[in-house]
C-alpha cells in the first residue's frame, strides 16, 4: 500500500503576460492577456512507506510545485494526490500532523531566540508528548550535535548549524513523510555527511518516508534507492539509480597520455570515437556494447606511444547532464 499516490497530477498557473516597459504594465492592467503556464503536466508516481526518493530536475522543472501540492499548500488543477490516504489540500490540517517540511532557505525557527525555545514551541504545536519530546531531544542532540546549539539564538548560527537545527525542528513530531527541499545546499562536506547520516538513521529506525529535492548528486547517491527525474512538468525517469547508470553509462571515455606529439592517421576499433586530440593527449569514447576497454586500449597502444591511460567511470553527474540535455527524452520517444 503506497504512502504517497500521485495520479495524473497537473498544475496550471494563469499568468498575465506583460509587455516590457511602463506602457506594457498599463496595458496588462486594463487589457490583461492571460496565458496558461503548465508547471506540472499529468504526473503519476507512487511512493511506498520507508522509501527515500530523490526528486530531481532542473530549476523550473516543476519540483517545488509538486512538493507544494503534496504538502497541501497548493490545490491541483487536475488529477489527484493522496498522502496517507488523505487529500493533502482539503484535509490540510490532518495531513500537516503527519508530515515534516524543510524549505531549503527559509527557516521555521524563531530567529532571535535560543534554539531550545523554538523546539519547545514547535513540540507544543504538534502536541508531542512531553516524555517523548525529551527522549527525542536527547537523541537528536546526539546525532546532530545540537548540545551546544540549544542555547544559541538562531541568528548567530552558521549555515550548517542552522540546517541541523532546522532538521531537528522538522522531525521532532516524528512525521511519517518528510519533504526536504535542498537540505544540503551551501554546506561543507562534514555537515553534509552528518545530515545524511541523520536522515538515514530516521529512515531506518522509524520507516520515515523521505522525498528529497536536491542538485547535490552526493545526496542522491548516498541516500536514495530511487530517483524520479522530471522535466517540463513530466516524469522522464522513475527507477533505481543503478538502472540509470547502466543505461547512460553506455559510453565510457579513456584518456591516453602519449609520448610523441604525432597521432595522425589512427585506426580506431568499431564503436569508438576520438573526442579530443591534443598534443600528448588523446581522449577516446567508446560504446560498451560494441567493444571493450581492453580492445580500445590495445589498439591505441599498438599505434601510439602511450605513456599512461585512465578509464573514467560514468558518474551520476555526467549522466544527469546527458538526461537534462535531452538524451533521455529521445530514448523514451523511441
Amino acid at each position: 500500500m503506497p504512502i504517497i499516490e500521485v495520479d495524473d497530477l497537473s498544475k496550471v498557473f494563469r499568468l498575465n503576460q506583460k509587455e516590457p516597459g511602463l506602457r506594457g504594465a498599463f496595458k496588462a492592467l486594463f487589457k490583461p492577456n492571460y496565458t496558461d503556464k503548465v508547471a506540472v503536466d499529468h504526473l503519476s508516481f507512487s511512493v511506498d512507506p520507508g522509501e527515500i526518493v530523490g526528486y530531481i530536475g532542473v530549476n523550473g522543472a516543476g519540483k517545488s510545485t509538486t512538493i507544494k501540492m503534496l504538502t497541501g499548500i497548493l490545490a491541483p488543477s487536475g488529477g489527484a494526490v493522496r498522502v496517507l490516504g488523505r487529500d493533502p489540500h482539503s484535509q490540510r490540517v490532518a495531513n500537516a500532523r503527519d508530515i515534516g517540511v524543510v524549505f531549503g532557505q527559509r527557516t521555521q525557527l524563531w530567529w532571535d531566540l535560543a534554539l531550545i525555545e523554538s523546539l519547545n514551541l514547535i513540540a507544543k504545536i504538534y502536541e508531542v508528548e512531553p516524555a517523548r519530546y525529551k527522549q527525542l531531544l536527547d537523541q537528536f542532540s546526539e546525532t546532530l550535535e545540537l548540545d551546544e546549539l540549544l542555547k544559541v539564538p538562531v541568528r548567530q548560527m552558521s549555515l550548517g548549524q542552522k540546517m541541523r537545527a532546522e532538521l531537528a525542528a522538522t522531525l521532532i513530531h516524528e512525521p511519517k513523510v518528510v519533504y526536504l527541499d535542498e537540505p544540503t545546499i551551501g554546506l561543507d562536506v562534514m555537515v553534509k555527511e552528518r545530515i545524511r547520516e541523520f536522515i538515514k538513521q530516521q529512515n531506518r529506525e522509524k520507516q520515515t518516508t523521505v522525498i528529497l529535492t536536491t542538485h547535490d548528486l552526493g545526496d542522491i547517491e548516498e541516500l536514495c534507492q530511487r530517483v524520479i527525474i522530471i522535466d517540463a512538468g513530466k516524469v522522464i525517469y522513475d527507477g533505481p539509480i543503478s538502472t540509470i547508470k547502466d543505461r547512460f553509462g553506455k559510453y565510457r571515455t579513456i584518456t591516453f597520455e602519449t609520448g610523441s606529439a604525432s597521432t595522425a592517421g589512427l585506426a580506431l576499433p568499431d564503436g569508438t570515437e576520438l573526442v579530443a586530440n591534443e598534443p600528448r593527449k588523446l581522449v577516446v569514447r567508446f560504446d560498451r556494447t560494441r567493444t571493450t576497454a581492453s580492445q580500445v586500449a590495445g589498439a591505441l597502444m599498438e599505434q601510439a606511444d602511450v605513456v599512461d591511460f585512465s578509464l573514467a567511470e560514468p558518474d551520476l553527474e555526467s549522466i544527469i547532464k546527458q538526461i537534462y540535455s535531452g538524451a533521455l527524452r529521445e530514448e523514451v520517444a523511441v
Partner: protein
Amino acid sequence: MRKLKRYASLYWLFLLQRFKVLMEYRVNFLIGASSTIFIQAASLMTVWVVMGQVPSLNGWTIDEIFMIYGLLTLAKSINHMFADNLWTLGHEYIRPGGFDRFLVRPINPLFHLLADRFCHDGIGNFLVGLVLVMRGFENLSIPWSLGNIAYLVLAVLAGGSIFIALNLITCVTSFWIMNSVPVTLAVFQTHEFTKYPLNIYGKMIGVAMTWLIPYGLASYYPASYLLGRDVGYMAWAMVPVAAVLLAAGYRFWLFGLKHYGGTGS
C-alpha cells in the same frame, strides 16, 4: 472544548515567545510601548486646545469628548495588540513565501498569523484609553455600577472586534494584490472621525461611520449610552455588527486562502 483549550494554551505560548523576543531588544520594547502614549498625548493636546476656545461642540463638553475618544482608543488598542500582524500579511508572509509554513502546520493559519506577533505598541494605546475612560467616569459622575462596567467591557470588546474585522477584510486583499497596506490604511484612517461626536458632522459622514465603516459604534454610541444620552437600540448595535463583520471577514479570509491554494505566492 478541547480545541478551544488547545488554542488558548498555544496563544499563551506564542505570547511568551513574543515577549522573550521583545526582551532581547529591551530598549525597542520600551520605546514601542511608550511611543503610542506620546502620539496620543499630542493628539489629545489638539482636542484640548480647540476645546479651550469653544466651551462645547454641538452640545458636547470637553470631558464628554474625551470619553468618546477614550472608548475609541480602547477598542482600537484591542486590535492594535492582538491583530496588528494582519497588516503584514502581504509583505512579510505571502510575498517572501513564509505563509507556506503556516499551511504545513496543524493549526488554523489565521490563528497562527495573529498569534505570531502580539503588538506591544498597543499597550500604550490601551493605557491612554483606560485613563481617559476612568477620568470620564469620575468627572462626569457616571456610577461605577456593575451594569456600567459590564457594558464598558462589552463595548470595548465588540468595538475591538469591529476594528479587527475591518482590518481582516482589507488585509485579505493581499492574496490578490501586491500591497494591501494602502487599502487597509484608507479604511482604517476613517476612524479619526469617530474620535468626536458623530452629530457634529454632516449626515453623510454620520451614516457612513455608523453603517458603512461602523467605527462609530465603538465610540459615539457607547459614550452616549454611558452619559445617559438616549440613542435607543443603537447603544447595543456594536455587538451584532461585530459578530456579522467577524463572520464576513472570516469567510472572506477562507475565500482568499482558497485563491492562494490555486496560485501560491
